[in-house]
C-alpha cells in the first residue's frame, strides 16, 4: 500500500509520456469534430452574422448608391471617384492625421516614462490602479469632464492660465486648439493603460542583463539604450500598432464635445463617415470612406510590423 502511494507521482508522469496516451488522443480526433461544432456554434453564428457578412456587405455597399429607402444601386467606382474630389474627405484625413500624430507622440512618450518610473520606484497595485482610473471611464465621461475643466469662462484650467498671467484659451472653440485638445484628452484617458502594457514588457526583461551591465560600468542611459529599448521593441511595436489603429477611430470625444467644429477643425474620418451615413443617409458613400479607412489601418499595421520588425526580439 505504502509503496504504491509513494510511487504514484512518478507513475503519473510516466503515463503522460506513454505512446498509448497519444494514440488514444489521436483516435479521439475524429470524434471531436461533431462536439466541437456544437461548442463553437453560438460564437460561429455571431462571427458570421456580425463580422463576416457585414465585412462583405460593407465592401459591396461602397460600390452602390444607397439611401436606406429603396434598394442599393450599383454605381461602380463612382463613390471612390467622388471621394477623391471631396475636399471634406481630404480635410478629415488631414485632421485625423494631425490628431493621430499628436496623440501617439504624447501618449507613447508619457507612457514609456511612466512605465520606467513604475519599474524603478513603485510597482504597487495602488499606483498602477490610480493611473488606470481614467482608462476605465468611458470616452463620454472623459470628454464631459474635460469639457467642464477646459471651459473658457469658468473652467479651472483657464483659471490657472489666468493666474499664470497668460490669456485664456478657447480650447474647444478655436480652430487651432480643437484638435490638440482632443489629442490631450484621449492621451489623459489612455496613458495609464499604455504604460501598464509597456510595464508588463519591462517586467519580462531578464534581470541578469542589468546586473551584467552594472558590472561593466554602463551608465543608466547606456543601459536604457542598449538593453531596455532593444528588448522592449516587440512590446512597443505592438503597443504602437494597437494605439495608432485605435486613435485613427476617434469618435466619441468629438461627438460629445465639438461635433466636427469649429468649422471643420475636428471633423475626423469616423465622424465624417457617421455624418454621411447616418445624418445624410448616404450609406454607399459612407461605406466607401469606411473601406478607405480600413485600407489605411491595414497599411499602417503592415508598415509598423515591417519596419519596426515587431516579431523579432534581440534577446538571443
Amino acid at each position, binding site marked *: 500500500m505504502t509503496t504504491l502511494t509513494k510511487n504514484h507521482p512518478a507513475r*503519473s508522469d510516466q503515463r503522460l509520456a506513454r505512446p498509448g496516451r497519444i494514440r488514444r488522443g489521436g483516435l*479521439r*480526433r475524429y470524434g*471531436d469534430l461533431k*462536439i*466541437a461544432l456544437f*461548442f*463553437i456554434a*453560438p*460564437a460561429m453564428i*455571431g462571427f458570421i*452574422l*456580425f463580422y463576416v*457578412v*457585414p*465585412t462583405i*456587405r*460593407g465592401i459591396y*455597399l461602397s460600390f452602390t448608391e444607397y439611401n436606406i429607402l429603396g434598394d442599393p444601386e450599383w454605381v461602380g467606382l463612382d463613390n471612390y471617384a467622388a471621394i477623391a474630389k471631396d475636399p471634406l474627405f481630404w480635410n478629415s484625413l488631414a485632421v485625423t492625421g494631425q490628431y493621430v500624430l499628436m496623440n501617439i507622440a504624447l501618449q507613447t512618450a508619457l507612457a514609456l516614462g511612466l512605465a520606467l518610473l*513604475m519599474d*524603478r*520606484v513603485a510597482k504597487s*497595485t495602488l499606483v*498602477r*490602479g*490610480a*493611473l*488606470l*482610473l481614467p482608462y*476605465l471611464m*468611458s470616452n463620454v*465621461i472623459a470628454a*464631459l*469632464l474635460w*469639457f*467642464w*475643466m477646459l471651459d473658457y469662462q*469658468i*473652467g*479651472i484650467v483657464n483659471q490657472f492660465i489666468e493666474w499664470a498671467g497668460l490669456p485664456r484659451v478657447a480650447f474647444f472653440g478655436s480652430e487651432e486648439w480643437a484638435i490638440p485638445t482632443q489629442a490631450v484628452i484621449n492621451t*489623459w484617458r489612455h496613458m495609464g*493603460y499604455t504604460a501598464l*502594457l509597456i510595464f*508588463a514588457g519591462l*517586467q*519580462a526583461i531578464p534581470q541578469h542583463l542589468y546586473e551584467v551591465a552594472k558590472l561593466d560600468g554602463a551608465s543608466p542611459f547606456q543601459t536604457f539604450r542598449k538593453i531596455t529599448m532593444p528588448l522592449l521593441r516587440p512590446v512597443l511595436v*505592438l503597443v504602437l500598432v494597437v494605439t495608432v*489603429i485605435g486613435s*485613427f*477611430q476617434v*469618435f466619441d470625444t468629438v*461627438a*460629445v464635445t465639438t461635433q466636427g467644429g469649429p468649422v471643420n477643425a475636428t471633423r475626423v474620418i469616423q465622424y465624417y*463617415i457617421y455624418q454621411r451615413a*447616418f445624418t445624410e443617409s448616404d450609406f454607399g458613400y459612407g461605406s466607401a470612406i*469606411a*473601406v478607405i*479607412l*480600413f485600407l489605411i*489601418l491595414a497599411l499602417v499595421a503592415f508598415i509598423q510590423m515591417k519596419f519596426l520588425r515587431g516579431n523579432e526580439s534581440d534577446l538571443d
Partner: protein
Amino acid sequence: MTTTSSASTPATARRRTFNARRAGAWALLALAIAVSVLPFLWVFRTALSTNGALATQSASLLPADFTVGAFMRVFGLQSPADAVAEGGSGAAIDFWLYLRNSIVFSSVTTAGAVFFSAMAAYAFARLRWKGRNAVFSLFLGTMLVPPIFTALPNFLLIKNLDLLNTMLGMVLPYVFMTPFAIFFLRQFFLNMSREVEEAAMLDGAKHLRIFFQIVLPNAAAPIATLALLTFIGQWNEYFWPLLVGSQDDVRVLQVGLGVFKSQSPQGAPDWSGLMAATLVSALPVLVLFAAFGKKIVNSIGFSGIK
C-alpha cells in the same frame, strides 16, 4: 583607514544620487497620479455646487454654495422650478430609465459573450478537430476589422430585422462572442492539465459535463476577470447604442449623458447637473474598481503582450 574611506565615499555618493533620483522619480509619478485622479475630485466638487455660485467662485477648492440639488436633479427628485432656481437649465435626464437600460445592455452582452466565448474557447483549446487553427486565426483576424466598418452594415441588418430601438437589436452583435474573449480564455484553457479531464473521461463523462464541471470551475478566476473587463467595456460603449438605441426607452446612460449635455443651451450649461450625472454614470465602474482593482490592474499586461 585609506581603504575604508576610499570604499565608503563612492558608496555614500552613490546612495545620495540614487536617493535624489528616487525622490525625483517619485515626484514625477505623484504628478502623474494627481493628473489621473484629481479631475474626478473636481467633478465631485462641481456636482456639489450650485450653478450660480460656480460662476462667481470658479476656483474655490470647496463646493461653491454646497448643495446636493444637482444629484437630486439627476435622480429626478427636484422640481423644474427648484432646478432653475439653482441655475439648472431645466433640461431633464431620465436617469432611472437609462440606468435600467445600461444594466440590461451591459449584463446581457457580458453574460452571453463570456459564456459563448468560453464554449468556443473550449473547442479551440481542448478539442481536436481538423481546421481548428485556421478557424481560430479567422476569429482573431476580426480583431483587425475597425468597428465603424462593420457598424454600417450591422446597422442595416438590425434595421432590416426591424430591431432598431429595441434592446435585442442593441445586444445581438455582442452577445454571441467577442474575439478578445475567445482569445483570452483559450490561453487559460490551453494551460489546464489534461489529467483530471482524462480521468473524468475514463469515468464516462461527456464533453458537456467536463466543460461545466471541470473546465468552467477551474477557470473561475480568469472568467471572472474577463466578465469584469467585458462589463466595464460594455457599460462605456457609446457608438453602437447611439446608432441603434437613440430612443428614450432603450437609451443607455452614455448616450443619455451626451443628450443631456447638448440639451443645455451654449449660454448657460447646467454644469453641476452634468457633473453629477457624469459621476453617477461612472459609479458602477468606480465600485467595481474599488472591489476588484487588483484583478483589473493585473489583467492589463496580459491583453497586449502574451
